[in-house]
């Protein structure tokens, strides 16, 4: 790297969820971002999905706020219809050339009214709906598109293909936005770093005729099913046979189409996400169509992520999804009925012929051609499977310095992992460009706040359809008509998606137009969407507290889907209550507090050290607290990562860099024992093993306390010496212990303590680990017999190549799931393992010298204690619970605290590292700012009524209230009062409930407001 000056801006290529996350993290921590998208709108694949696993959140609903945030972030510059044609220069100072295709619509003039589309005569296949149905030549990619600007598809446009023809859109566009003479533009942009996040394409099953795809429209891809299930999709969420509109009664999902198949498509790797998405789709389809039978045909059920196995079990037991362990070799059509014929072997090995109404091909992920071109332009190395090559210890760094990746370009992965990588890439960029932080960014300016204190109450109500999420159940027209009749309401309007960018703009405009001074949004939950609408109010010059949300979706339409009349009435109640409450709303301003620009990392393993090092190199001082006297954690037990990198060499390097970094203060043999404070201003007491204590201050913290191996209680572990755990075996093997050296017959037993009652989760690393150990044993001596007894081989993503190598070496894999656990008995020096063969359906007896148990990963026992200190929850298994499984995978619900590594869930090294970097990026968004804005919902003392009785002090769980004795005024007794520490107050309201004199209240929840709300509730 040159010592030249670094540029404080970043280019992110690809506006999917990974790129969006990277953009937001970087823009929020002092860097200017160019977000480059090849389509006309950002959003990527996630905006095409219906719901997302494992939480069944509406995909569009959870990504829309991020889209809007990207669209209006001052430090994010969106460049759509662009592709990268050249990257020259070095890390810190690149010149990127972009070719921008013409949009033929002037973005400054287009008001997205949609008249052009209505008048466009040309229809072509709708690519947003995965080829189902039609769209026009002038179109929006999807209704909530960001930027919300129309575009013309030049290949389809009649006018552009034949000058002089058509041109209707131009005639009807009042804004004069159509520009048929628009031309390609070339941009040359100077940036310090580049993040490649171009995503993937789904495998096209058409060329391989055996899937029947293309010959019968009742055979669809998983992406098409997402569109059929989606309320914004071509059938508004109604699932019928595309061929004849007949009801769907039986549906089959065929897994591994275009994945784990070297014969028909050459994609030998596993696409990692299709098992979970098929289960989710099956569960959702059953909700859509009562009585629907769903069968999933699979090879190995790869539900290795957090919460996935529980989801699988629920699908199997509660939803009644049928799982058949048999891959399908093709789909045939019964010509008479149009039904789809499948032949498979059942669990008894019997061949069954069965008919289905709909067959869903779980199409795999692959790197599209234009991404291969991009990789060439960027001059980065690819793996054999055509994904970006990265190191397991630097999972977002490409082979070219200064160019990073996130998302599916570096291997198939799901949304949480893509989001993690988005943040991780941001962290890696921030490390590189730390000296240039803040040099290119623009500071926000809001319009001046309108003083409404003298105004009469003028309420505006916006009722969201949420596609059909709400409008499909609640009679929104009726609701709107009712809402107009409520007192002080001056304007009511319905919105298809009130969270879309155009809706925000329209709300802002209407606030001005009607001089609105109280706003009710009848939509979803404030938990996810309130920040967005508050921002909108601010832009409109209205105090952000003059907002009330009526949750007519999560608490109404979603739960009363079978009772539309009742739901409509309840929506009216909720709106009436919100109106009553907001009527007494008052402007209130957030307090800002200075941020302690230092970090804390708890845990000195790979995740902890990675996070600490990254924060330090971003320029922040970091406290690294390690319980033991050694850095390194569980990685010290590992030899190689799945891709063959030597773990201990890398860990030793990491330890050196951590020790040598002046900004990292290492506290070995200390633990965190007390925590006070809040985001930006934490104080912790550390206690040493000798009982000494010290206090540290920091603005944000990362919990990376790791996990530990379970101790097996089965397979005669402990009583037969040859039965060992995988961790023990690695040690014995490494030290060439005689027993291992002489042994000829090895049996690995998987899932020991994982995926069973009480521990219904996958330990994620054991399949790969066992396969690697087995390969080593076999390579050392090909005469050895090695058996792996498993339930599902979860060598996900590119790890599949290891599984294949193992089989080719003659390692025998036996699935014990169908017939129950193997039996292990000692016979002198030998061990007998009895297991049923899943193919021959008969018992096998293997005489072994060693049996190696793949023991589960458990959380550390002190996890709960740390959880209590920071008020962060652990899940049923004892792993830390992130704020949102999908979109906030490293955040805690407690602001300013983050999680990484095994403490969150079992995971391999590269995922721990990515998560650590992500946590670091998220922490940096706090630490990079000199001050933090606090929530406006805080307790306020009414000095008129408070008499200082101090009852509230005892009940405050945050120790935020103190007693204050004022100096006596002559002739009067000294007045007593309580005072609130706004930084510590969480606005929980216990004080307000306790106070007998109405001397304390919480802003936004005054007695007046709550009473009005209650009266309104009872008035129904």
């Amino acid at each position, binding site marked *: 790297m040159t010592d030249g000056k670094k540029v404080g801006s970043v280019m992110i290529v690809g506006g999917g969820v990974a790129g969006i996350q990277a953009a937001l993290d970087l823009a929020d921590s002092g860097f200017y971002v160019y977000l480059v998208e090849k389509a006309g709108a950002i959003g990527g694949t996630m905006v095409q999905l219906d719901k997302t696993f494992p939480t069944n959140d509406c995909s569009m609903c959870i990504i829309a706020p991020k889209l809007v945030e990207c669209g209006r972030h001052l430090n994010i510059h969106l460049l759509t219809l662009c592709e990268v044609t050249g990257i020259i220069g070095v890390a810190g100072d690149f010149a990127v050339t972009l070719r921008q295709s013409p949009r033929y619509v002037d973005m400054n003039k287009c008001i997205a009214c949609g008249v052009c589309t209505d008048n466009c005569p040309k229809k072509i296949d709708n690519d947003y709906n995965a080829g189902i149905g039609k769209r026009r030549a002038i179109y929006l990619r999807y209704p909530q598109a960001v930027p919300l600007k129309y575009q013309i598809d030049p290949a389809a446009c009649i006018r552009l293909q034949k000058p002089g023809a058509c041109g209707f859109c131009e005639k009807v566009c009042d804004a004069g936005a159509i520009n048929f003479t628009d031309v390609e533009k070339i941009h040359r942009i100077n940036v310090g770093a580049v993040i490649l996040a171009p995503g993937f394409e789904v495998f096209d099953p058409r060329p391989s005729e055996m899937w029947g795809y293309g010959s019968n429209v009742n055979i669809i891809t998983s992406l098409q099913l997402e569109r059929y299930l989606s309320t914004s999709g071509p059938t508004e969420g109604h699932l019928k046979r595309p061929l004849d509109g007949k009801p769907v009664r039986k549906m089959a999902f065929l897994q591994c189409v275009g994945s784990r198949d070297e014969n*028909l498509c050459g994609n030998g790797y596993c696409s990692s996400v299709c098992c979970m998405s098929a289960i989710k789709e099956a569960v959702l389809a059953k909700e859509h169509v009562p009585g629907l039978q769903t069968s999933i045909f699979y090879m190995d059920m790869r539900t290795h992520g957090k919460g996935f196995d529980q989801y699988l079990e629920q699908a199997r037991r509660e939803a009644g999804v049928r799982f058949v362990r048999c891959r399908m070799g093709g789909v045939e059509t019964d010509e008479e009925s149009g039904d789809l014929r499948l032949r498979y072997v059942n669990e008894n090995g019997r061949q069954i012929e069965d008919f289905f109404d709909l067959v869903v091909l779980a199409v795999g992920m692959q790197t599209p051609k234009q991404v291969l071109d991009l990789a060439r332009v960027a001059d980065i190395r690819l793996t054999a499977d055509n994904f970006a090559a990265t190191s397991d210890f630097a999972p977002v760094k490409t082979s070219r310095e200064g160019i990073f990746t996130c998302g599916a370009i570096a291997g198939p992965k799901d949304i949480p992992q893509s989001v993690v990588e988005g943040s991780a890439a941001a962290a890696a960029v921030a490390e590189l460009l730390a000296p240039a932080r803040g040099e290119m960014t623009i500071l926000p300016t809001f319009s001046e706040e309108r003083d409404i204190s003298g105004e009469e109450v003028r309420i505006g109500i916006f009722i969201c359809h949420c596609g059909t999420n709400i409008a499909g159940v609640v009679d929104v027209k009726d609701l709107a008509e009712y809402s107009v009749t409520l007192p002080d309401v001056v304007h009511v309007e319905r919105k298809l998606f009130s969270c879309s960018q155009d809706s925000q703009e329209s709300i802002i405009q209407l606030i001005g137009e009607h001089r609105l001074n109280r706003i009710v949004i009848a939509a979803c939950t404030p938990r996810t969407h309130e920040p967005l609408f508050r921002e909108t109010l601010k832009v409109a010059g209205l105090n952000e507290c003059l907002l009330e949300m009526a949750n007519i979706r999560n608490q109404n339409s979603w739960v009363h889907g079978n009772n539309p009349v009742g739901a409509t009435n309840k929506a009216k109640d909720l709106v009436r209550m919100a109106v009553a409450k907001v009527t007494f709303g008052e402007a209130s301003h957030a307090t800002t507090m200075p941020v302690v620009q230092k970090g804390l990392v708890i845990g000195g393993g790979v995740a902890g050290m990675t996070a600490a090092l990254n924060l330090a190199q971003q320029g922040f001082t970091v406290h690294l607290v390690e319980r033991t006297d050694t850095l390194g954690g569980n990685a010290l037990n590992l030899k190689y990562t799945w891709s063959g990198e030597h773990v201990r060499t890398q860990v030793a390097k990491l330890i050196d860099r951590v020790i040598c970094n002046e900004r990292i203060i290492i506290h070995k043999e200390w633990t965190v024992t007390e925590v006070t404070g809040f985001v930006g201003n934490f104080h912790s007491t550390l206690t040493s093993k000798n009982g000494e204590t010290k206090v540290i201050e920091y603005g944000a913290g990362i919990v990376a306390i790791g996990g530990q191996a379970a101790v097996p209680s089965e397979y005669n572990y402990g009583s037969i010496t040859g039965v060992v755990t995988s961790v023990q075996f690695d040690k014995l093997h490494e030290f060439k212990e005689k027993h291992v050296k002489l042994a000829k017959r090895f049996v690995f037993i998987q899932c020991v303590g994982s995926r069973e009652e009480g521990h219904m989760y996958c330990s994620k690393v054991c399949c790969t680990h066992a396969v690697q150990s087995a390969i080593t044993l076999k390579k050392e001596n090909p005469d050895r017999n090695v058996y792996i007894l498993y339930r599902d081989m979860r060598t996900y993503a590119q790890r599949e190549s290891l599984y294949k190598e193992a089989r080719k*070496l003659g390692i025998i894999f036996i699935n014990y799931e169908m017939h129950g656990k193997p039996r292990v008995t000692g016979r002198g020096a030998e061990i007998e393992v009895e297991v049923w063969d899943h193919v*021959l359906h008969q018992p096998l007896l293997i005489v072994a010298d060693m049996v190696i148990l793949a023991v589960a990963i458990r959380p550390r026992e002190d996890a709960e204690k740390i959880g209590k200190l920071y008020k962060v929850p652990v899940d049923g298994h004892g792993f830390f619970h992130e704020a949102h499984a999908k979109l906030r995978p490293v955040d805690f619900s407690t602001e300013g605290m983050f999680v990484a590594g095994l403490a969150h869930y079992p995971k391999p090294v590269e995922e721990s590292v990515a998560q650590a970097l992500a946590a670091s990026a998220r922490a940096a968004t706090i630490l990079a700012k000199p001050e933090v804005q606090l929530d406006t919902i805080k307790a306020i003392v009414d000095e008129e009524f408070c008499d200082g009785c101090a009852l509230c002090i005892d009940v405050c769980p945050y120790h935020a209230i103190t007693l204050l004795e004022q100096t006596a005024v002559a002739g009067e007794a000294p007045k007593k009062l309580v005072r609130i520490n706004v930084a510590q107050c969480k606005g929980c309201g216990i004080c307000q409930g306790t106070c007998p004199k109405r001397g304390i209240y919480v802003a936004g929840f005054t007695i007046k407001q709550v009473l009005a709300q209650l009266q309104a509730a009872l008035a129904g």
Partner: protein
Amino acid sequence: MMYEFKVNQFAEEFGVHRNTIRNWINSGILIAKEGPGRKYLMKFEDYRLLCEKFGREPSLHPENNAASQTITTVPRSDRPPLVVSGEKSRLAEDPSWADACLTCGTCAGLCPISGVDGLDPRKIVRMAVLGLDEQLVASDWPWKCTMCGKCEEACPVGIEFVALIRKIRGARKRAEVPGPIHRGVTMCLERGNNLGIPKDDFVFLCEDLGEELNAGDCPGFKTPIDVHGARVLVTVNSKIPYGEPDKLKWWWKIFFHAGESWTIPSENWDGVNWGLFSGDDEAMKTVVGRIVDNMRRLNCKVLLLPECGHAYFATRLGLNKWYPEALKEFRIVTIFDLLLEYIESGRIRLDTTKHRMPITYHDSCNYGRKSLKAFGQAYSDEARKIIRACTDNYRDMNPYGSGYCCGAGGGTWAMPFAEERVFYGRIKARQISESGAKMVIVPCHNCRDQIFKSLNREYDLNIEVKYIWELVADSLMEDRT
């Protein structure tokens, strides 16, 4: 418990025709007594055994009527465990023959005789993985398998099933090879053709037939036996001169109309190569070698690869494998190449009005799927082009693309497993019947016999079956160009 059934209900359950069920009852495979109301009664145990034989999931269980498909955990039985020795299979020569198997079940789902004898392609491969060579060689399943390669085509890891099956067949003691397969090989090696037809008889027959043609449709025709320097060398399938010699005339008429320079060797003229079926490489090599010798002896430029799927496949494979140098000396053409050459160059003219009934085509596995894999070319489109030149009423079977074996491939037409062969053919029968065709065109003798002589009767198909060259010969416009 007794199982009461009607014939058509039973036929539906087993996916076969009611004729087949009646045949089973008559031959005693299905042990049932006639009851009142056209119903039959059989013991549940016999029903279970029959299901076992054909690998069907019993639709009834004595305990309850629930379909057993809902079982997720299969109960253990008291069977004594099979001791896995760890010894490697000597039959699976390469990891891609067995070890690479994912046990995904694709093959077993596709194979038309999965479950017969309790075996299927996946189990065969699994037995090889576990080194159970003796059981594999002793089993009759590999001889009931038609080596159609349907499994191989779809296998995600490219397991070489056909090679493995052939190796298993080859490992059996020759005296224990089922049916006349090995006898045919021995006869061919000793006497030059599978049926042991003496040279003089063959030459006499050919000349006699030539005379008939000369006197009839093809004035001036003379059978070209051993003509040195003829352009094309033609082989003969031995069962034609033996059983139905008139059928030789189809090709001869085509050659006559095309004005072809061709010849038949007087010795070693058989195109049949049963070494492919019995797993006998040496025999296969010898038989292919004789064709090479004839080409050299008669100095021909073009070898018409033998008609009939297996004969074409064995000869082409043998040439590639053992006689690569010979391929530099002469050109090889398939029956499709030659017929298309005649049609497209206008050397023969065809009349599409002679075949007005709906016609479909059956792809021989050896000419189609297996040829594509081994030689990079399937002759599906070529065959259809030829047929469309002969008729205006062509329709494909469903699915088109990768069809199903007729059920008689791999030598099973000659083997003593008739019930399995008929059972195997049920899918082909359904395809034919669904196509609505009244005539099926085939490029292979085994396929023809299975479809015409067996499936046609068993499944009441009511169809004609013609060889593709027969169709062309019958469509020739009389005026010679």
